[in-house]
Each structure stands twice: as structure tokens, then as C-alpha cells.
């Protein structure tokens, strides 16, 4: 049973996990987002504290990607606010949001296919005058495979390697908050485990993480807190331990039968 492991994982960050942090780094306040006439988010409230890993769970079409896209400035909320360190950042164009310290590894990886691995990483550091050496070394240390493949066209990488590149590229912008949209999508279990342990390491090095996942069991194991989105609303939230123990979560997202 997965719950056996959770006290140990959560034990590392127990104080932050116990209650929402006093000074949230990233806050979504009553955020309503529409695609034309279709409402995708119906007034969601989410907080991410400095140093946390927070997971957004939810079925297909729940609004997880919409949430991350709004934070990054690709969409503007019709009402409500996005705040970073207490300052409103909604309505700011994406290239300015990156400069404020929010990096994203988007859904489907979206590496630049006709650029090399190195060029993709350099694109991640576009906001800086020159590519920071320390960042590049850090990314190569986290993902030695990227170093091996640095001259290869990104479009020819395997799915797992592309995911590593997408995360590494986001890290090159030296984000304070890293947004990860379904990093485990379509990857073999071994690679998923590897990516998740690297996310944990990135967080341990000081980067706050907001993770979107369908792979609920593994995501909750590494998170401090989590929110469950259903058709555009937050249905549940709590510490990872609470959600792992919740029968509704277990049934809907951990693939267990009602009686388990």
C-alpha cells in the first residue's frame, strides 16, 4: 500500500505541509478563465508556498493545463487574480512572466524540434544577456543524458529525453517557481520514476514546484500538498497525506475500487 511510504516523504517538509504557508509565493485567487464562451476555470483558489511541491490533480479536461497557461500569461483570467509574492501578474505577457521567475515545461514537452539539445537549453535562458554557465552545468548534472545528446536535433530525441529537455530548458531561466504539465505523460514507468526523483531533487535545491499530473499516486508521494480539480473547480485540497488517505481520491485517482 502506498500510504506506508507517505509519512517518511512528508516528514521532510512537515511544517510547510501541515497548513498553507503564511507567505505564499504564488497565489491564484478566484480565477475565472474562458475560451470564448466556454468557461474552463470557475473561480479557483490555489496557493503555492516558497519551497513547496504542490500537485494539481484532475481528470482530462478538468482545467489543469488552463491553470498553468494562465499563470504563465498565455491566457488572461476574465476575473480573479494571479499573484507572485503578493504582486498581481495576470494580464502580463508570457515573456515578462518568465522574467519574473516563473518557468514552465508545457504539456506535450514542446521542445523546438529543429534545434539541437544545446540550442533548446539556450532558448530557456533567452531572458538573460548570455547563457549562464552555472545553470547549464546544473541541468547537465541533473540530466547527464542531455549532455551526451547536446548536439542532437531535439526532434529526434526519445519521449523521455524530450521531457528531460523540456524540464531542463525551463530550469535554464532560473525560475523561482517551476510549472510542470504532466511530465510523466506517455513515458515508461522506469523513466517516470527517474523524472519524479529529479523533480524532488530540483525542489530540494530550492525551486518551488507546481506539478500537474494524472499519475496521482506517484505525484502525491513527492508532493507537500495537492488540489483536485474537477470541471474547472477545486473539489478538494489538503496535504498529500490527507489526499492519499481520502477514499474519494483513492477511488477516482488511485484506481482503487469503492470498497478498497
Amino acid at each position: 500500500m502506498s500510504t506506508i511510504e507517505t509519512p517518511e516523504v512528508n516528514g521532510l517538509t512537515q511544517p510547510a505541509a501541515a497548513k498553507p504557508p503564511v507567505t505564499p509565493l504564488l497565489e491564484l485567487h478566484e480565477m475565472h478563465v474562458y475560451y470564448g464562451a466556454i468557461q474552463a476555470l470557475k473561480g479557483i483558489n490555489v496557493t503555492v508556498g516558497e519551497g513547496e511541491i504542490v500537485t494539481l490533480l484532475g481528470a482530462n479536461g478538468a482545467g489543469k493545463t488552463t491553470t498553468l497557461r494562465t499563470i504563465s500569461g498565455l491566457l488572461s483570467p476574465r476575473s480573479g487574480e494571479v499573484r507572485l509574492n503578493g504582486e498581481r501578474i495576470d494580464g502580463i505577457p508570457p515573456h515578462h512572466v518568465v522574467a519574473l521567475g516563473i518557468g514552465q515545461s508545457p504539456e506535450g514537452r514542446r521542445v523546438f524540434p529543429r534545434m539541437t539539445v544545446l540550442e533548446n537549453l539556450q532558448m530557456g535562458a533567452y531572458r538573460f544577456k548570455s547563457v549562464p554557465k552555472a545553470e547549464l552545468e546544473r541541468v547537465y548534472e541533473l540530466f547527464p543524458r542531455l549532455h551526451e545528446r547536446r548536439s542532437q536535433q531535439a526532434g529526434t530525441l526519445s519521449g523521455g529525453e524530450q521531457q528531460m529537455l523540456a524540464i531542463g530548458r525551463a530550469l535554464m531561466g532560473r525560475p523561482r517557481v517551476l510549472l510542470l504539465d504532466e511530465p510523466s505523460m506517455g513515458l515508461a514507468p522506469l523513466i517516470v520514476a527517474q523524472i519524479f526523483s529529479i523533480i524532488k531533487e530540483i525542489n530540494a535545491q530550492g525551486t518551488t514546484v507546481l506539478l500537474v499530473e494524472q499519475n496521482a499516486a506517484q505525484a502525491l508521494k513527492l508532493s507537500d500538498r495537492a488540489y483536485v480539480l474537477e470541471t474547472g473547480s477545486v473539489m478538494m485540497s489538503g496535504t498529500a497525506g490527507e489526499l492519499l488517505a481520502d477514499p474519494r481520491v483513492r477511488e477516482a485517482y488511485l484506481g482503487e475500487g469503492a470498497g478498497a
Partner: protein
Amino acid sequence: MTVQEFWDYLIPGIALGALYAVIAIGYTMVYGVLQLINFAHSEVFMVGGFAVLMVFTKIDFNDPSVGMSVLLVLLGFATAGFAGAGTAFALEKVAYRPLRKRNAPRLAFLISAIGASFLLSNLAGKLFGRNNHSLTIPFENKKVFTVMNAQVTVLQVLIVCSAVIMMIGLDLLVNRTKMGAGIRAVAQDAETAGLMGVDIDKVISRTFIVGGLLGGIAGFLFAMNSSVGYTMGFFPGITAFAAAVVGGIGNVRGAMLGGLLLGLVESFSSPLFGEEWRYVSAFVVLILVLMFRPTGILGERLGRTA
């Protein structure tokens, strides 16, 4: 065709192809970042010709010295480049950006492009008259050397050399600079480029400026070879567009290759098939290439990824 004819038609073919290549770059780069065929690019080319015409008619040069010739050619480049870049910059701001901000459908962009093309061309007709103006060449266009008995003129050398320099410079800009990386990133996935910190509006603006600079200069070089007129952009423009498609639209090196190919084909078509085929040949090649390789010679795929 005799061997002598081959050489006689090869040299003007290379010069023409070099010009088409430079113009085609403007089509292909804009297509890369906007997925739009900028039909008004032919009028950016025309503006380059008219701008130099206006400047040169103000200067009284008769039989200029070599130094003076060099200065006048440089002045021509600067004038045409500046006018072309400025026109392209304004064109994007007025004809395309408002549509982009409103998420207009593709068709609206195309109609706007065609409208801008007609507008600029006929505006020039209104302002400068509908007859052709000859542009005085600021040097003596004598033959510099012969290749296999075929003459090579100063103008041909100037056209080929400046086209080669522009193409090398552009290739370096696109592949070796940060600005070029931004252009390539926007072309491959604009939204993700934005997530990396690229100011997409700025990249699109700069792409038009660079394409317009080359297009304007090509207009000046072309005008010295023929004349300046409000429809001068039409045929070279549509041929260069065909060249961009033949090379693989969106691919800069493809545009260079396609331009050179169509210039040569156009030049050789008159001795081979008769003068009346001259303006048909490029499009026969276009159709043939598309039949066997729909993405063009160097094109990987049409449209964007993901």
C-alpha cells in the same frame, strides 16, 4: 543550344537567380514566423527601386569617378535598404498586427496581404505615374571579364557579390545570433518561444525589417538592370515566392537554392524553348517540384509542429 549560348545565358541567369534568392528570403522568413504569404513583399521590393530613383534624380552625376561611383552605389544600398525595411515594418504594423491581436482567421491575413500589395502598387502609380522610369546607373557598366567568351558586366558582378554577402550575412544572423535563435524558435513554436522569454511581437517586427532590407536592396539592383515602375514588383515577386516554395517555404537556405534555380531556368528557357516561355518556365518548375516533393527541395514539413 551551343556551348557559347550556354555560357551567354548562364551568367545573366546566375545574376537573376541571386536576386530572386534575396527576395525569396523575405517571403520565407515571414512565412516562418507568421505562416503567412506576404504578398505585399513585391511592393517592398518596388519601394526600394523608387526610393533610389528619387534620391538619384536629385543628384547630378555625369560620368562619375570610381570613388564617386562607389559612394553612389553605397548610397543606393542604404536608401533602398532603409526604405524597404521601413515599408515592411509599417506593413506588419498596419496590415497584419491588428489581425493577429484579434486572432483573425488565416484567410483574413491573406486578403489583407493582397490588399496591401494592390494599395502600395497603385499608390506608387498615382504618385509617380504609370510609365516606367529608367534609373541611371552610377557607374560605367562595362564588361569586367569574360568567362568562356561570355561577357560579365560590372552590374552583374555587383549583383552577385552583394547577393552573396547578404545571404551569408543572413545565414549567420539566423543561425549564429540570439536574434536568429528567437526567429527560429518563433517559427518552430511561437507559443513556447513566448514561454522562454521571447517577445514574439518584437521578433515578428524584426523579421519584417530584415526581409524588407533585403527586398529593398534587391529592388535597387533589379532597377539598375531594367527600370523602375509601379508594377515592377509583380513578376519578380511572384517568381521569388515560387522560389521560396520550390526551396521549401520557411527554410532560408531553401529560398536561396530555389531562387538560384528559378533564375537559371528563366534565363535558359528563352534559348531552349523560345522567348515566349520565359515567364512560364519558373512556374512549370514549381509545379513539377511540388508534384514530386510537396514540401519543396529542403522543406521538412509545411505548417507548424505540435
